[in-house]
């Protein structure tokens, strides 16, 4: 990484970015060609095209991440002349590749899940065509080297995501969610377009590297306005506050595999856009005003969405609010502008895709089996779907940040980086951010306790007596994600060395990005900041060794008990007067199940009584009833209101950018 060679990398690797994107789009067209019948062929095409793109992206990791190459690819060989890049280019540096990895891995897993999950739905050919279009646009977005292509990809992404949200059109609220997503999403898209227009009028180029080269010199209110438009545009794609209500409406009604993509990947593309914007193009994340504002937006999204999640009755709606809450964490960390903060944000972005994907897939499994997602109507599924339950628990523990899962490692990094920043800048806002983040973590835990209690624990409802766990085909993708949760949680150091550090270094080194396009030394002449120094902070959260000791402790404790109790688990003990009581109980309860194993119900016959859903956490909601009723009024579900919030955010950002940049 030290001896960077920013030239054309030779060999086949140079063509991998375009092949990875094309493979997905080609798959989309082939799927459409195959038509209604031949399910096996269709699945084969989807499987192969998503696998090919994943493999190509993985193959790019060694040269880009470890050796520090930046792969540039010019369509039709339209290479830059002088310092003008006119052609359509793809530019894959470590940052793009990091997000490309998230995209392709999630797309592949969700495709595997779709095969059994969508088997009963009609029009599979439309589903898979749209799905691969969405996947291709996402990958194209993160690999693209110029702003206009990013806009095109955003448009494809939004339109296919809207169509897929409404795919199960007979679901209650599916059309409504899709229309809201389309209307408010189009505000974001138009903001991006306006931003692009302003930039083009000012600098006459849209190539990212060229913009990065020229923007620092061409600072004017117009470019500041462009920044605001682009920021709000990407922010709306990440569903940041105040665009978050849409996410809930859209996620809750989309098929689970699509929810996973919307929450796990589309939001990440918004995050990618913001990082590209602030670190590479404008290089303004070092300004205290920008840094504070972005971090604060993140922390506020984080907190508001987690409290909104508290009130939800729908499993996936609750998860949707949590997505935005987790994205809030990511943005808060990214906004710090420190190398370690960026690493923490990227790590959390990756982990969020993993655990939230797992949770959405588990929710999909519950929906598949039980036919509903209403937390007030589910209950007692732990014994009917033990495997799904275990997978859900792993995801829930990871998102709540319980050690040893990945959420803990990345949240720890976020806290540490916020703290360092607070210390370094002496700005008490960052302490507020830290407290909000830590509090949100507890509230996240609380709402997952709610889900676990409502869906999986408690007595089983009679209508679910015949319920069966989902098939192995649906569990395989969940197992992949669960394994990733554990691995990235246990070895955060390795993940950091292989993926996070190069990606963060790429974001902090716009000079390399420019030189890769225009030749070595171009950036040296302009006022491009030095490459950011790698962070010295250690991931000191734990050594895996201590967790082995934990295991030892468990074993010791169990052995201790075995010896002490003097008998193995479960053997019932017969007292000499027990027989008499049993006979009495036979006399009264002949033919009924043995009351001994019923739940204690103050002596009554145990009835169905489940504390779950909206009944939990009464004390908390009651004490904060003013806040919650205000929030409820604010999240009116009215698309006019949401549009107004979007416009207000845009106005605010514009004023902020023009005043502060």
């Amino acid at each position, binding site marked *: 990484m030290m001896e960077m060679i920013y030239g054309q990398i030779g060999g086949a690797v140079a063509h991998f970015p375009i092949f990875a994107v094309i493979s997905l789009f080609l798959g989309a067209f082939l799927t459409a060609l195959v038509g209604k019948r031949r399910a096996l062929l269709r699945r084969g095409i989807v499987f192969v095209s998503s696998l090919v793109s994943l493999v190509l992206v993985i193959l790019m990791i060694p040269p880009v991440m470890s050796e520090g190459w930046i792969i540039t690819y010019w369509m039709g060989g339209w290479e830059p002349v002088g310092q003008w890049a006119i052609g359509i280019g793809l530019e894959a540096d470590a940052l793009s590749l990091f997000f490309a990895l998230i995209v392709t891995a999630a797309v592949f897993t969700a495709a595997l899940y779709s095969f059994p999950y969508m088997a009963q739905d009609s029009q599979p050919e439309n589903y898979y065509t749209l799905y691969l279009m969405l996947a291709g646009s996402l990958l194209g977005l993160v690999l693209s080297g110029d702003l206009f292509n990013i806009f095109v990809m955003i448009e494809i992404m939004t339109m296919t995501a809207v169509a897929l949200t409404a795919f199960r059109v007979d679901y209650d609220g599916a059309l409504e969610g899709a229309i809201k997503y389309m209307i408010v999403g189009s505000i974001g898209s138009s903001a991006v377009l306006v931003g692009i227009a302003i930039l083009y009028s000012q600098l006459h180029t849209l190539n990212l590297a060229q913009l990065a080269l020229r923007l620092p010199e061409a600072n004017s209110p117009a470019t500041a306005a462009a920044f605001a438009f682009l920021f709000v545009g990407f922010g709306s794609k990440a569903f940041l506050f105040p665009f978050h209500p849409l996410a809930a409406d859209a996620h809750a009604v989309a098929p689970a595999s699509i929810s996973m993509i919307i929450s796990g990947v589309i939001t990440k593309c918004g995050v990618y856009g913001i990082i590209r914007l602030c670190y590479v193009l404008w290089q303004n994340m070092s300004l205290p005003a920008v840094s504070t504002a972005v971090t604060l937006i993140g922390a506020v999204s984080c907190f508001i969405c987690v409290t909104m999640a508290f009130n939800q009755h729908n499993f996936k709606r609750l998860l949707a609010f949590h997505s935005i809450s987790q994205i809030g964490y990511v943005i808060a960390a990214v906004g710090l502008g420190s190398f370690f903060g960026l690493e923490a944000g990227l790590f959390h972005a990756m982990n969020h895709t993993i655990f939230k994907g797992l949770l959405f897939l588990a929710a999909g499994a519950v929906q598949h089996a039980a036919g509903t997602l209403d937390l007030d109507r589910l209950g007692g599924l732990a014994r009917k779907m033990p495997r799904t339950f275990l997978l859900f628990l792993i995801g829930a523990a990871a998102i709540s940040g319980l050690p040893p899962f990945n959420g803990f490692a990345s949240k720890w990094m976020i806290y540490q980086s916020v703290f360092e920043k607070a210390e370094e800048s002496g700005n008490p806002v960052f302490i507020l951010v830290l407290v909000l983040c830590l509090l949100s973590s507890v509230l996240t835990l609380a709402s997952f306790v709610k889900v676990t209690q409502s869906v999986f624990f408690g007595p089983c409802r009679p209508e679910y007596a015949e319920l069966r766990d989902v098939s192995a085909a649906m569990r395989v993708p969940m197992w992949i994600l669960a394994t990733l949760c554990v691995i990235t949680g246990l070895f955060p150091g390795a993940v950091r060395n292989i993926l996070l550090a190069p990606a963060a270094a790429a974001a902090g080194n716009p000079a390399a990005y420019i030189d890769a396009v225009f030749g070595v030394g171009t950036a040296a002449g302009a006022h491009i900041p030095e490459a950011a120094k790698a962070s010295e902070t250690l991931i000191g959260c734990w050594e895996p060794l201590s967790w082995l000791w934990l295991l030892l402790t468990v074993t010791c404790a169990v052995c201790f008990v075995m*010896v002490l109790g*003097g008998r193995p688990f479960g053997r019932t003990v017969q*007292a000499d007067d027990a027989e008499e009581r049993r006979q009495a109980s036979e006399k009264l*309860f002949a033919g009924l199940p043995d009351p*001994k194993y019923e739940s*204690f119900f103050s*002596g009554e016959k145990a009835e169905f009584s489940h504390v779950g859903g909206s009944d939990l956490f009464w004390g908390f909601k009651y004490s904060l009833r003013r806040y919650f009723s205000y929030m409820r009024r604010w999240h009116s579900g009215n698309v006019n209101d949401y549009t107004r919030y979007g416009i207000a955010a845009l106005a605010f950002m514009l004023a902020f950018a023009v005043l502060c940049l």
Partner: protein
Amino acid sequence: MFQKWIDSSMKKSPWIFHINAGSCNGCDIELVSVLTPRYDAERFGFRLTGSPRQADIVVVSGPITMQSRERLVRTLAQVPEPFCVVSLGSCPRSGNVFKGSYAIDGPLEKWTHVDVSVGGCTPKPEAIIAALAQAAELLEKKRSRMHG
């Protein structure tokens, strides 16, 4: 040795669960008074518990009305072995003034083995403590018979 330890702690930590099977509340008040600072049964480790799953001594008061009969038997079935049943006052023993009423289905012996019975309407706290202490002794014996 562990078994011995466990056996001897059976009598040192008897937790009480109280079932009112139609009592007039007199015995119940006396039972509670046993735990007040004046008599302080807690010095022997007695403690009122809220769930039969954790009880060692089940104290039953009242003449076992028809309404409470099923609840009584169901709750007794939910107590983990070994445990003792103490009948408190005259009602569960004989029906007291309610004897012969169409509404009662006593005595307590009909439904369970009674380990200790303390008479009186209502019994004195001292008598209750003596009965509970006796029940605690019985607990240890029961436990040692169970693994012996």
